[in-house]
């Protein structure tokens, strides 16, 4: 099992239902800056015509996550299923993981005086046998899809075989597992909402990168203790 998520970001309508569902389901601290997931708004223009690009995002659950390496107590760790987890009881608030994360996916949960981040709803949903995250379940336009990239027959891998995608900040070599899907019939429009230098992948080109990173880090995957 190797959990990952695809995001059909061009379908996002910025309704924020995912942000609310995440907070409600996981008991995340209240506050605009205290978010496990969020929708980014980037204002741009093409030939003087303004438009807003919407990018839903969260922890990328990187296969080669730098946040785990800096943690002095093992509070941040690789869990079974390739999920990057945090154990708040072990956190000494050194904030090294927040500095190491290229995606600023972490924040300080003041209610626990510890660092918090997305866990793919492991504690609240996956452990109970559910196969979706709260954000996925609540999304009216079906932006997100959680799945197992080790299973070639999973809906996620089938989707990735059909659609091109990109990942965030690949130059950091963290092998992130949020796959941003390009629109099927409008590459030109899609490429205007990302950096022109962004590498566009197919599953066949990205799979070897995943396998290499997994082989390196799998020995560190630990059992999740709740």
């Amino acid at each position: 099992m190797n959990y990952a998520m695809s995001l059909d970001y061009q379908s996002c309508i910025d309704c924020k239902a995912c942000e609310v569902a995440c907070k409600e389901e996981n008991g995340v601290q209240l506050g605009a800056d205290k978010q496990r997931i969020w929708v980014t708004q980037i204002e741009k223009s093409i030939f003087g015509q303004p438009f807003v690009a919407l990018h839903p995002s969260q922890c990328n659950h990187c296969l080669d996550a730098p946040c785990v390496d800096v943690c002095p107590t093992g509070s941040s760790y690789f869990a079974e299923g390739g999920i990057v987890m945090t154990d708040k009881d072990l956190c000494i608030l050194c904030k090294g993981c927040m500095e190491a994360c290229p995606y600023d996916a972490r924040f300080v949960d003041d209610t626990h005086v510890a660092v918090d981040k997305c866990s793919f709803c492991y504690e609240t949903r996956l452990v109970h046998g559910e196969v979706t995250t709260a954000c996925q379940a609540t999304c009216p336009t079906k932006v997100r899809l959680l799945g197992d990239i080790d299973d070639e027959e999973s809906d996620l891998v089938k989707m990735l075989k059909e659609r091109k995608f990109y990942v965030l900040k690949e130059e950091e070599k963290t092998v992130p597992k949020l796959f941003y899907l390009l629109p099927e019939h409008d590459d030109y429009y899609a490429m205007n909402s990302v950096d022109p230098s962004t590498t566009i992948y197919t599953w066949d080109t990205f799979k070897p990168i995943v396998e290499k990173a997994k082989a390196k880090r799998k020995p560190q995957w630990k059992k999740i203790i709740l």
Partner: protein
Amino acid sequence: MEKNHPINFHINSVGIKTFLTDKMMIIAYLFLALAAFGVIEMIYERYFLLSATAFDAGLNPGNRDVANAMKEAVFGHGGEVKREAPWSLYIVNYMYMIYVGSGIIFLVAMAELFEVEIIVKPAAGFLTLGLGMLFAGLFTIMMDLNVLNVYWMILSPQFGSGMWLMMPLYMVYIPLVILEIYLILNHQKEWIKKVAFMIIVVGVLVEFVEFYVQAKLFDMNSARHLWTTYPILPLYFMVSSFAASLAIMGLYSYLMCKSALLMHTLERGALYFVLALGAYEAIAYLFIDRKWAEIILFGDFKYYFYLYILLAVIIPFILLFKDYLNKYFKLIASLSIIVGTFLGKAIFVYGGNAYPMSDRFGAGFEKYGEYEEVKEVIFFMPPWSEIAIVIGSLGIILFIFRVADLFFGVSVVEEKN
């Protein structure tokens, strides 16, 4: 003062009145009071400021505390730690105190090793000063951490983490330095000198490991390219720290020893490190990531950076290069280096966070919260509690030094007695 002699060790008898009314102690108490104010404020902000989760809001509708916590969440400062800039003044002060303090210890150890005559008398004083700076740095970092969970550093060690490696290092290093001071104060015994020699050799090794581990810690934060692209980061730490160490030792010799020759020797040493620091910075910015370099050299940080170069390199160079006899030139040069290198550390830490990580899609910077503006440079003023703790940490140095001086006579003045 009357002397007691437990276990062949001289301890001065110090009256409680002397302890309370000594001038340096009074200054130390004032700084410590400021630190105490900061600690109380920090504890309130971190552990007692109301915060609520979505569960609280759902389970306790109408609860006054939950309502206040929600108000704080929307209209407050958003908690003690900013998501965009997790490291701030605490880390600057920790780095400065630890590096410069251990730099002093290193230089004294080297002088002992090579039997530099001029350092022999003030050696114990210098080492106590360095030790005080180490404790001031450790105090600062402990205030930055969630101290209630720090025991996990021992119960759940992560040997590959640079931050974890710092702990055993100091657990070895600090007792060594204390033992070294003890041995210097008891310099009559030949066998103690031999042990001291071994300790100094180990101390030199520890010094290099420390700079390496600190650099490793910053280098592990792969997303902050200012830190990862600084070429040979341990070298920067060494050069900058030794310049400040020598400047502080020069200031100490001016205030405590009144030795023009010692001050002259230390300032000449400082001049070489100041020149090396200037050369290092000039070369470093050829390698540093362009995004960060632009912000620091030509963007919002430029005036701070040029002020740092002016204070840490240019002014000391002008005042020290021609070897003027005027001791005030040396004093000004020392103060300029001390302030300048601190500013340099601040630019290093704040600069690392300056380029927002939120440019994730390469299409422009993102907002972090609904109520925030889009920012192209990240900078936050630290809270007052943090400023008070950092300034107050000077009290720890003064307190440790003066207590050691009163009871054991570590300063050169006392040693003459």
